[in-house]
């Protein structure tokens, strides 16, 4: 059941991410629906689920954009690993804590992807542009992560798959 819930939210996140255009400020970051899902799984589920979510979400994000296959999965794994490491330092029931965690992990994910794309040579951002984009992604994740966490938790409670690990 957990796997099905996870797949549902990955598909929902990917669809919304494509339909909702990127934010036109702070380096034009996209709304990180997929990343928020990965973070939720990283802090609330067993690591194996988080790895699967990161790989699946990455595959979807890369397929729906011009990013080479595997790059987003790599960025999501970094962000998810960070969230997993920090899960005991942040109280996940408090919205501002989720906001903070989302912001840190989104910045890390964007930075990783920017580095990979630069190494690959398809996107050449300057350091300032990259920092601006990381800040933009952090702002969006801070807004989106608490809402996304609340929605997934609500669905999990409804289906009886939610376990309190916080």
């Amino acid at each position, binding site marked *: 059941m957990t796997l099905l819930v996870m797949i549902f939210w990955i598909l929902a996140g990917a669809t919304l991410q*494509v339909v909702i*255009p*990127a934010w036109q400020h702070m380096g034009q970051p996209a709304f990180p629906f997929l990343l928020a899902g990965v973070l939720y799984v990283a802090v609330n589920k067993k690591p194996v689920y988080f790895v699967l979510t990161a790989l699946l979400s990455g*595959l979807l994000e*890369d397929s729906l*954009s*011009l990013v080479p296959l*595997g790059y987003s999965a790599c960025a999501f794994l970094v962000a998810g690993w960070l969230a997993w490491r920090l899960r005991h330092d942040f109280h996940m029931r408090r919205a501002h804590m989720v906001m903070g965690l989302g912001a840190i992990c989104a910045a890390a994910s964007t930075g990783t992807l920017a580095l990979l794309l630069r190494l690959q040579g398809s996107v050449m951002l300057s350091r300032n542009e990259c920092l601006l984009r990381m800040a933009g992604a952090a702002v969006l994740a801070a807004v989106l992560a608490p809402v996304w966490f609340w929605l997934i938790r609500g669905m999990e409670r409804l289906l009886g798959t939610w376990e309190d690990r916080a």
Partner: protein
Amino acid sequence: MKDRKWIALSAVALAVLVMMNLPDATSQRVKGAVRDGISPLQAALRGGVREMQDIFRYMRGWRDLALENRALTEEIVYLRGEMRMARDLERNNQMLRELLGFVRRSPNRLVSCEVIGRDSTGWWQTIRLDQGAHSGVMDERAVITADGLVGRTVAVSARTADALLLSDPTCKVAVRLSRSGVFGVMSGVGAKPGEQPVARIDFLLKDADVQEGDEIVTSGLGGLFPKGLLVGHVRNVEPDEAGLYQTAWLNSAADLGRLEYAFVVATEQDLEQAVMEDSSVDMGLVDGRAAEGETP
């Protein structure tokens, strides 16, 4: 226990490395399959959003409906007259072409597409179209609207295609100024479409005749974009720091921020190939004159 952890970590790292180093063709095939799989969801959501927008638009404008109806009726009468005249002209044109033995030089056709999404990462400025290789859409083809050029196709799967917008810094177009005939290469600046310049032409000679408001069209050089497609207008002109060249900043003719439908300029060969690949698919060709004739 520690061994198991390392094995799991190695397996994950291996999976990511394999994904990142797949051959280009395999990678494109995987991406295409995933995109085609999710495109019905995107189209449905996009359709829902559009329905809601239409309802709100209708609710806001119901008072003006009677006036609008009257204006539209007048327009229909006028356009019918124009259409009759155009038919006569086309017949004459055709007759003269036949008399002169004129061969049609542009075998291009338009494939109509609905915009079902945008780049999901924000790293590029792209739109996703709901038609792909099965409808005759191929890689590196011009994408236009009734207002002008929008961009070019960059990644095509069986049922969808991604188009790189003019505003993307990696999108380069060979252009010409209609008034003065000056040539240049336009590149996107990644700015917010609709409000700021979306592209610029660098290295125009300092004495080149470029003025604000000048119309920019495709030059046809390079062969990617058909000649004469409207691209946009010059917003302002600036000399470069050394004073040797000038840069023209442009606004696109098409509103890149509000694209709902677009047309891909396909060749006869593209369509033939599509028919060969899947003869049963709906071709999605534009009705009316555009489908019968040449590209604008």
